[in-house]
């Protein structure tokens, strides 16, 4: 579990004078599911493209399966399955024919792998239907099938759940978990749907403005996530005034739906309840909670932007 599959050192990508990715030191451990999170344009896809060999590194190094020299790294890419920036398919071919091209390209013996992979992603019944008539979700599944066909040891998926329906999302989540847990496949998954990454990933890398601002395990995020009291009252403004004046607390946040997130008194919510009640505020909800990945990410990104 401690083997590092992907290790980058000061990985940088420049276009002209503009650095889109700066000094990324990324560690992806064997068997882990690495959630790569960042806003649009943060540099996620550029990093994945450099790892997959679609673009060169301007500065720094990439180590793949312990290979460090360029030739070795390129050879190691034969052990990778990737879907970067959406599914890339031949629209005039069927799903099976698309996989046949990849099977030949990679020199995979036997055609059984095609049926098996199509079944894995739920596309076994598409028959002679051309890919151009597929829905976005079906194309996404086929893109994932292409990445999975060679039974890769490292799977790189850039926004794999885009376009999938809710059932498809659940199935995909289960498929990725199975691949990781049962087959020991290491997975790097980037997504802007943070809750989805949170459900799947065991490790996280948070990228912002081309810099990797945090890299941690799920346990570490849970530890670091800030606890708060989720408070809903009949008179929000009065509740806020009481929090500021009577409880002398300014560490709170009012959300758009009127919920107040109070980052204090987490160990003693009864005090908050009592003070609000004594001052005539009716409490609809008062629950101690932990920040989700979304909250943690937002705080990190806000902190990095300051």
């Amino acid at each position, binding site marked *: 579990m401690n083997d590092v599959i992907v290790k980058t050192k000061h990985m940088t990508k420049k276009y002209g004078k503009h650095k889109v990715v700066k000094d990324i030191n990324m560690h992806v451990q064997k068997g882990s599911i690495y959630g790569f999170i960042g806003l649009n344009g943060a540099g996620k896809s550029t990093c994945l493209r450099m790892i997959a060999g*679609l*673009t*060169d590194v301007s500065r720094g190094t990439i180590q793949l399966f312990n290979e460090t020299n360029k030739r070795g790294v390129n050879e190691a890419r*034969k052990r990778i399955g990737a879907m970067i*920036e959406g599914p890339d398919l031949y629209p005039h071919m069927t799903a099976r024919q698309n996989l046949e091209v*990849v099977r*030949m*390209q990679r020199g995979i013996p036997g055609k059984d792998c095609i049926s098996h992979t199509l079944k894995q992603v739920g596309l076994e019944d598409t028959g002679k239907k051309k890919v151009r008539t597929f829905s976005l979700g079906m194309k996404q599944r086929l893109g994932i099938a292409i990445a999975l066909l060679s039974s890769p040891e490292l799977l790189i998926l850039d926004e794999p759940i885009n376009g999938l329906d809710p059932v498809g999302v659940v199935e995909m989540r289960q498929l990725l978990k199975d691949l990781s847990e049962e087959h020991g496949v290491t997975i790097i998954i980037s997504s802007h749907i943070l809750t989805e990454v949170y459900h799947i990933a065991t490790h996280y890398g948070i990228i912002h403005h081309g810099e990797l601002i945090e890299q941690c395990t799920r346990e570490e995020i849970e530890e670091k996530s800030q606890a708060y009291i989720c408070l809903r009252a009949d008179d929000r403004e009065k509740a806020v005034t009481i929090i500021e004046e009577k409880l002398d607390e300014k560490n709170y946040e009012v959300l758009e739906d009127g919920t107040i997130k109070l980052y204090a008194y987490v160990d003693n919510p009864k005090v908050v309840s009592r003070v609000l009640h004594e001052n005539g505020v009716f409490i609809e909800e008062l629950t101690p909670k932990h920040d989700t990945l979304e909250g943690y990410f937002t705080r990190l990104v806000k902190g990095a932007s300051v």
Partner: protein
Amino acid sequence: MMNGLRAEGYKLFHARIFWALIIIASFLSLAMTSLIYLDEKGILIEQITVETGMEESLTGFTMLIESLVEPDAFFIFLFAALLSSFFVAGEYTNGTIKNIVSTGSKRLIIHVNKFIVIWGATILVLLTMVLTFTLFSSIYFGFGTFPTAAEWTVAGKSFGLTCLIIGAYSGIATCLAMIARNAAVAIFALLGFYLVFSTGIDMLAYRYTIFEDLLRYSVFDYMRNLSLLDEGIDNFVSRLVSTAIVTIVLFVGAGVLLFQRKDI
């Protein structure tokens, strides 16, 4: 290398453009032979005459030899251009080039595979044109006498050299299509390239010696002189072969270099 070639071959036989060109080549042959037939029979109005360039009587076999000795350079370049535009630039449009590159295959091999397939496919389209030309001529004019060994030799040599020139055209087409990354842009770029090097330089060659030399050593000039082969022009064959090979090496090499530096 063989895996990549097999995959490219599979894609070719599933590509619409390949079958469309096969059909177009057959249709062109039918149209040409029909025009010749109508002209021979005097059915066409007087103003229209079809130049066959042949002194002997028209038969299936004479047309076979003729089409092998003097293929149309523009059509050959057009076939290579269309194939590479849809087949090479199309990979960028679909994004499927990412699937190929991320397999860890060497970019040199990927580019060379594409070049070989375009080369082979253009030869197949040309052969279709030659064979359908022979077939339709035989239907209209009969088979005629079987060509002599000498005629076969000249036809064989010419076709061999034509194949080399197709290689040069395919090298140019694959390289430019890879740079263009878009089928429509690639077609325009390739036709523009042909016009500049074939017609443009031809015109300039009348005024400036340097362009005359450039034209003499370009693959665009040789195609029109291919029929001189049976007249025994000195050094013509060796010059033609070396020019074609140099063009292939130059453009495939440039294509590989550019592809290796390209962000995908």
